C-alpha cells in the first residue's frame, strides 16, 4: 500500500464519514480533522515537491481492455497541496460558529462539509490520473461534485448551477470527442502512447485536438467565451464553499490543459502551426484567448456591486495569467503560471473567507450596503487587505512574484501586446479591489453596524493563517518555487533556477527578501516621521468636512455606488453584454427548435409523416 493509497483512502473516509454524519453537530470538526490528516499524508509525500520519485497507486483497473491507473508526480502533488489546503481552510472556517449560524438559518453544514470532502476526493483522483481515461473520469467527477457544492444553497444558486452544468457537460463532451480521436489514432488511452504519436500528427489533427481539449478543459477555467457561468455559480455557493471553489476548482481545468496540451501534445507543435491570414501561431491564439480572459472578466468585476461576484469574476481573470505564463514556454513564464496557481488559491481563499466573515456579521455582501467595518472587524480587514494586495499583484505579497515572473517572460520573449493586456488586467484589478475594500471596510460605518463585533476565533484563524501564507510566500517565494521547479520538471519543461528570495539573472533579477525588507524599512521611516508629530486625536466619523454642513448619523456620507463614475462614463458603453446576448440567443434558438420538434408530435397526422418517410426513403434508394 503506497502513500497515495493512504491519501485516497483517508479522503474516501472523509467523504463517507461526512456523508453519514449529517446530523452530528460537530461534523465540521471531524471533517477538518480528516482534512488535516489528508494534508499530513500529502506532506509525508513531500519528497515529490523536491523532485522525488513518482508514487504509484497500488490499485488499478482494466476496463474494456483499457488499463486505468493513478499516480502522483510533482505536478499532481503541487496541485493536491493547494486543493487540500484550501479545502482545509474552508472546512475549518465552516466548522465552528459559521456552521452553527448556517444551521440556524436552515442550511445543512454537514452537507457542505460532505460536498467539500467529495470535491477533494474527486480532485485528488483527477490529479492522480495516469492515463487519459482516468483523467476524463476524474474530470467528470470533479465537474459533478462541484455542481453539488454550487447548488446546495438552493434558490438562485440552482439556476447558476444548472447553467454551470450545461457548460461543463459541453466541455466534457468536447473532451470526450478529443479522447475518441486520440483512441482512434493511438489505440489506447495511455499518456505515453499519445506523447509518442504526437510528433507525427498532421496539422489538422493537432488543431482539432488542441481546440477540443483547450475549450473542453478551458470551460472549467472560465476562458472566454465560456466564462459566463463561473462568477454567478461560485458567488452563490455558501461562504467557505466559495472560498474552496474560487481557490482551486477552476484550476483543475488548468491542470488538465497542462497535462494534455502542454505535456502530451506539446507546445512546440502548436508554435509551428500558423493560422492562415494572420501573424499568429496556434499557440499565440491560445495566449490571446488567455489575455482576453484576463481583461474582460476583470473589467466585468469592476462593475459588480456584490463582493462575492466581484471576487469570483477576478478568479476568472487571474486564471488567464496562469495560462498565459504557461504558454510562453520559458522557465520564467511557466514558473510564474504555476506559482500563480498557488498564490491565487491562498489570497482568493483568504478574500472569500473575509467576505464570508462580513456576511456572517452583516448578512449582506452588497457593496452599497456596507462600509466602515474596519473599526468593528479589524482582523477581517487585515485579511482582506493582504488578500487584495496579493490579488492586485503589488509587493510584498505573493501575487506580485508570480505576476512578475509572467511579465518578465513576456518582456524578454518580446510579446508587447500580451504584456500590455496582462498589465491592463492588473490595473483593472487594482481599481476593483480598492472598491471592494473601500466599500466594505472603509468609509462611513452604517448605523445598523454600530454594534457588530469581529467574527469568532474559529473563523479568524483560518483566514489569518491564509494571509500569513500569502505574506510569507511573498517574502520568500523560493519556498514555493522549489515545488514549482519540480512540477516544471514533471511537465518536461526547463526548470527555473531560483533563490529563496526570487530569481537571479543577468537580465533582471528579483530578491523579494531585500525588496520586502527595504519596504518595511521604508514603512519604519514613514512611521518615525509620522509619530514625530504631535499625537493625533481620534475623532468621530461625523466630525468631517462637509462644506460647513452639520452631518448627522442618518446622512449617508459614503461614496460607494458607481464608484468609478468617470471611467464608466468613458468605457461604460463598452459593456454590451454581448456574451449574455449570445448565450440567450443560443437558448432561444434551442427553444424554438425544440418547439418546432414538438410540433411533429403534437398534431394528429402521424400517418402523413409515415407516408413522407416512405417516399423519402424509397427515393433515397430507388431514385
Amino acid at each position, binding site marked *: 500500500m503506497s502513500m497515495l493509497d493512504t491519501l485516497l483512502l483517508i479522503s474516501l473516509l472523509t467523504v463517507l464519514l461526512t456523508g453519514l454524519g449529517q446530523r452530528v453537530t460537530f461534523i465540521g470538526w471531524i471533517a477538518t480533522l480528516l482534512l488535516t490528516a489528508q494534508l499530513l499524508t500529502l506532506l509525508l509525500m513531500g519528497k515529490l515537491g523536491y523532485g522525488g520519485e513518482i508514487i504509484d497507486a497500488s490499485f488499478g483497473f482494466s476496463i474494456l481492455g483499457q488499463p486505468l491507473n493513478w499516480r502522483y508526480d510533482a505536478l499532481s502533488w503541487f496541485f493536491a497541496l493547494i486543493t487540500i489546503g484550501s479545502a482545509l481552510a474552508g472546512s475549518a472556517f465552516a466548522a465552528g460558529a459559521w456552521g452553527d449560524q448556517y444551521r440556524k438559518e436552515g442550511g445543512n453544514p454537514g452537507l457542505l462539509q460532505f460536498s467539500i470532502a467529495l470535491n477533494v476526493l474527486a480532485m485528488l483522483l483527477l490529479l492522480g490520473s495516469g492515463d487519459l481515461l482516468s483523467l476524463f473520469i476524474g474530470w467528470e467527477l470533479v465537474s459533478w461534485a462541484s455542481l453539488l457544492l454550487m447548488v446546495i444553497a438552493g434558490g438562485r444558486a440552482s439556476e447558476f448551477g444548472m447553467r454551470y452544468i450545461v457548460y461543463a457537460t459541453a466541455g466534457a463532451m468536447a473532451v470526450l470527442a478529443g479522447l475518441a480521436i486520440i483512441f482512434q489514432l493511438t489505440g489506447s488511452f495511455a499518456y505515453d502512447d499519445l506523447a509518442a504519436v504526437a510528433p507525427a500528427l498532421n496539422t489538422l489533427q493537432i488543431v482539432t485536438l488542441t481546440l477540443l481539449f483547450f475549450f473542453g478543459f478551458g470551460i472549467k477555467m472560465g476562458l472566454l467565451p465560456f466564462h459566463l457561468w463561473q462568477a454567478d455559480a461560485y458567488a452563490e455557493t455558501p461562504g467557505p464553499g466559495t472560498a474552496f471553489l474560487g481557490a482551486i476548482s477552476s484550476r483543475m481545468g488548468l491542470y488538465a490543459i497542462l497535462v494534455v496540451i502542454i505535456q502530451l501534445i506539446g507546445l512546440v507543435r502548436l508554435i509551428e502551426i500558423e493560422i492562415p491570414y494572420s501573424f499568429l501561431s496556434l499557440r499565440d491564439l491560445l495566449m490571446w484567448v488567455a489575455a482576453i480572459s484576463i481583461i474582460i472578466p476583470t473589467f466585468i468585476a469592476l462593475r459588480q456591486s456584490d463582493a462575492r461576484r466581484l471576487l469570483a469574476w477576478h478568479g476568472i481573470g487571474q486564471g488567464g495569467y496562469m495560462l498565459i505564463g504557461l504558454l510562453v514556454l520559458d522557465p520564467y513564464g511557466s514558473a510564474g503560471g504555476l506559482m500563480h496557481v498557488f498564490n491565487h488559491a491562498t489570497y482568493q481563499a483568504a478574500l472569500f473567507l473575509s467576505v464570508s466573515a462580513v456576511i456572517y456579521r452583516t448578512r449582506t455582501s452588497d457593496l452599497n450596503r456596507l*462600509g466602515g467595518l474596519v473599526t468593528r472587524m479589524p482582523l477581517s480587514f487585515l485579511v482582506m487587505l493582504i488578500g487584495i*494586495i496579493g490579488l*492586485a499583484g*503589488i*509587493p510584498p505579497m505573493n501575487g506580485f512574484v508570480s505576476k*512578475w515572473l509572467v*511579465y*518578465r517572460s513576456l*518582456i*524578454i520573449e*518580446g510579446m*508587447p501586446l500580451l504584456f*500590455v493586456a496582462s*498589465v491592463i488586467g492588473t*490595473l483593472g484589478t*487594482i*481599481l476593483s479591489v*480598492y*472598491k471592494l*475594500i*473601500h466599500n466594505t*471596510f*472603509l*468609509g462611513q*460605518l452604517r448605523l445598523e453596524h454600530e454594534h457588530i463585533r469581529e467574527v469568532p476565533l474559529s473563523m479568524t484563524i483560518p483566514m489569518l493563517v491564509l494571509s500569513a501564507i500569502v505574506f510569507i510566500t511573498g517574502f520568500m517565494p523560493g519556498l514555493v518555487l522549489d515545488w514549482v521547479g519540480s512540477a516544471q520538471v514533471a511537465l518536461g519543461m526547463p526548470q527555473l533556477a531560483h533563490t529563496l*528570495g526570487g530569481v537571479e539573472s*543577468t*537580465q*533582471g*533579477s*528579483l530578491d523579494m527578501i*531585500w*525588496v520586502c525588507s*527595504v*519596504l*518595511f*524599512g*521604508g*514603512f519604519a*521611516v*514613514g512611521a518615525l*516621521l*509620522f509619530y514625530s*508629530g*504631535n499625537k*493625533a486625536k*481620534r*475623532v468621530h466619523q461625523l466630525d*468631517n*468636512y462637509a*462644506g460647513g454642513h452639520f452631518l448627522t448619523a442618518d446622512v449617508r*456620507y*459614503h*461614496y*460607494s455606488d458607481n464608484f*468609478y463614475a*468617470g*471611467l464608466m462614463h*468613458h*468605457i461604460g458603453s463598452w459593456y454590451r453584454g454581448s456574451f449574455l446576448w449570445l448565450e440567450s440567443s443560443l437558448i432561444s434558438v434551442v427553444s424554438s427548435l425544440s418547439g418546432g420538434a414538438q410540433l411533429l408530435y403534437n398534431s394528429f397526422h402521424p400517418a402523413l409523416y409515415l407516408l413522407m418517410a416512405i417516399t423519402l426513403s424509397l427515393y433515397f434508394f430507388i431514385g
Partner: protein
Amino acid sequence: MANSILLTILEVILMPLVAFIVGLFMVLMMRKLAAKLQRRVGPPLFQPLYDIVKLYGKQTQISHGLIHDIGIIMAVGGYVAAEALLPVPGMDGIAAKGGLVTLAYLMMVPSLGLALGVGQCANPNGSIGISRALTAMLAYDIPFIIVIFGVAYHFGSTNLVSIIATQQAEGIAGWGISEMPILAIAGLFALHASLGKQPFEIYIAPAEIATGPMVEMGGKFLGGLFVMQTFQLYTASVLYVSLFLGGGENWVTFLIKCFAVLAIPVLIAYLFPRYRTEDLIRLVWKWPVMLALLGVAFVMN
C-alpha cells in the same frame, strides 16, 4: 559579503535622504516656474521645507482612525523604499535586486496606502478623489507600461543598473532617447500625467471636491503627503532619466537632467485647464498609447 550588505544598507538609507532633499528643490522649482509663468515672484527658497515643518509641528492633529495613520505611513514609506530601487550616481542600492517592473509596482504601494488612509476618513470627497486618481492611474499606466516594455526589450533586461550602464557605455548616441525617440515622447506624456499636475489634476480639483484625497488631511497627515510629493517628483524624473537619458554619470549632469525632465511637463502644465476624467482617459489612451505602440514596433523591428 557582510561588507557589501552593510554598504547596501548604508546606500538604502542615504538614497531616500538624497531623494528627499532633491525632491524639495523640485517642488520649489515647480512652484517657482508656475509663479514665473503667472508673472509672480513665487515662494522663497526654503518654502517647501517651511510647509513641511509647519505641518508636522501642528499642535492638534485629527485622525480618523488607525488606518488613516497607517495610510500616511505607507504613502511615505512606500516611496522611501522605492528610492532604494532607483540607482543614482555612485549608489545602486537594491536596484539590481528589484528591477524595473518591481519599481513600477512598488510605486503603487504609496498610492494604495494613501487610498486606504483616505478611505478611512469617511469623506466622500476623498473617496471621489481616489476613484478619480485610480482611474487616472489606469489611464497613464498603460502608455507607461508599454514604454517600460519597449525599454526593457530594447536593452534586453529589466535591471535598471544594466540599462543605465548600457546607455552610458555608448554615450549620447546610446541613450534611450536617441535610440527610441518615439517611446521617449510617449514616456514624457505618461510621466506628465502621472505627476497629477495640470491638466491632469482632476482628482484633487480643489474647488469641486475640496482637494479630493487631501480633504481630511491636516497637520502631519498633510505633511506626510507633502513629503510624498517630493519623492514622487524625484522618482518620476529619475526614472525617466534612467530610462532615456543615460542615468547619471555624475551628480551634476544627473541633477541637471532630472530638473530638466521635470521642467518640461511643469512648463506645459500651467498653460492648460484641467481635463475631466473621461477626457483624460480618452486623451491618454489615444495619443501616448499610439505613440508608445509605434515606438515599441520600431524597437522590436
